[in-house]
């Protein structure tokens, strides 16, 4: 997607989508910020295809992912499997918003894969980190959106 829109524009699209989807789905406010690096976290990842050839991860501290899941399920107790399922759905919605915004800006349609869940960090094969944006939640938990590009894409 780096070739389709400027990095600055993409960052803005990612930031706005993350803030609005997180607020709408979970009632949690994210704001741009600098969390401490890699505290206990988990990651959901997907790759874009058709005109994009890039990847996209959402990584967040476990306490935030638990809270996100509890808020989405409207339940006090959640299981590991719930967190995995809800984060995958969250990324699915988030990617949809990003793809729609990119289409609106650049008239380029993109598809993305089925989101995958990982405990801890995840480093996709044949991709390199292109850039990331970081957030703090309303309870100062950290979250990161990481954009990857394929190694053979200039």
């Amino acid at each position, binding site marked *: 997607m780096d070739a389709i829109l400027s990095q600055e524009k993409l960052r803005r699209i990612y930031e706005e989508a993350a803030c609005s*989807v997180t607020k*709408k*789905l979970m009632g949690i406010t994210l704001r741009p910020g600098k969390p401490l690096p890699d505290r206990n976290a988990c990651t959901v990842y997907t790759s874009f295809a058709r005109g994009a050839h890039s990847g996209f991860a959402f990584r967040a501290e476990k306490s935030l992912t638990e809270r996100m899941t509890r808020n*989405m*399920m409207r339940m006090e107790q959640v299981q590991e499997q719930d967190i995995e*399922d*809800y984060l*995958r*759905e969250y990324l*699915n*919605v*988030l*990617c*949809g*918003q990003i*793809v*729609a915004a990119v*289409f*609106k800006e650049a008239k380029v*349609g993109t*598809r*993305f*894969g*089925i989101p995958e869940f990982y405990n801890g960090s995840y480093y996709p094969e044949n991709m390199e980190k292109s850039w990331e944006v970081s957030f703090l939640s309303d309870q100062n938990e950290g979250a990161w959106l990481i954009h990857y590009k394929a190694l053979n894409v200039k």
Partner: protein
Amino acid sequence: MGKRVMVVDDSRIMELQMENLLRGTDYEVAAYCRNGQEAISRYEEVMPDIVTMDILMPGMDGLETAQIILEGFPDAKILMLSSLAYDDTIQEATQIGAKGFIYKPFDQEQVLDAFEKALNGT
């Protein structure tokens, strides 16, 4: 008895969400299918009034699944339900005969409105 909805989605979240959202309405979740193949093989047995079909699923995607169901049952009322909400997806869904599109994230009003429109042909 309420109108019967078949939910086709690889995420169990959608089944839970749809059940919560349709509680107390004229609709009920009659069947939940985790993939396109299951939806195709169960459609005739369930004969739902409405199908909500996710687009992004492992194996056969929702557009292909909808197309196959519509070939066998041209009157099927299939609504594509997806976070992929941009023009060429909508165009593709319309071309194969889907009756509408529901975008994630959605609320009860949006879903019921889409159901009514699909059933009334508006």
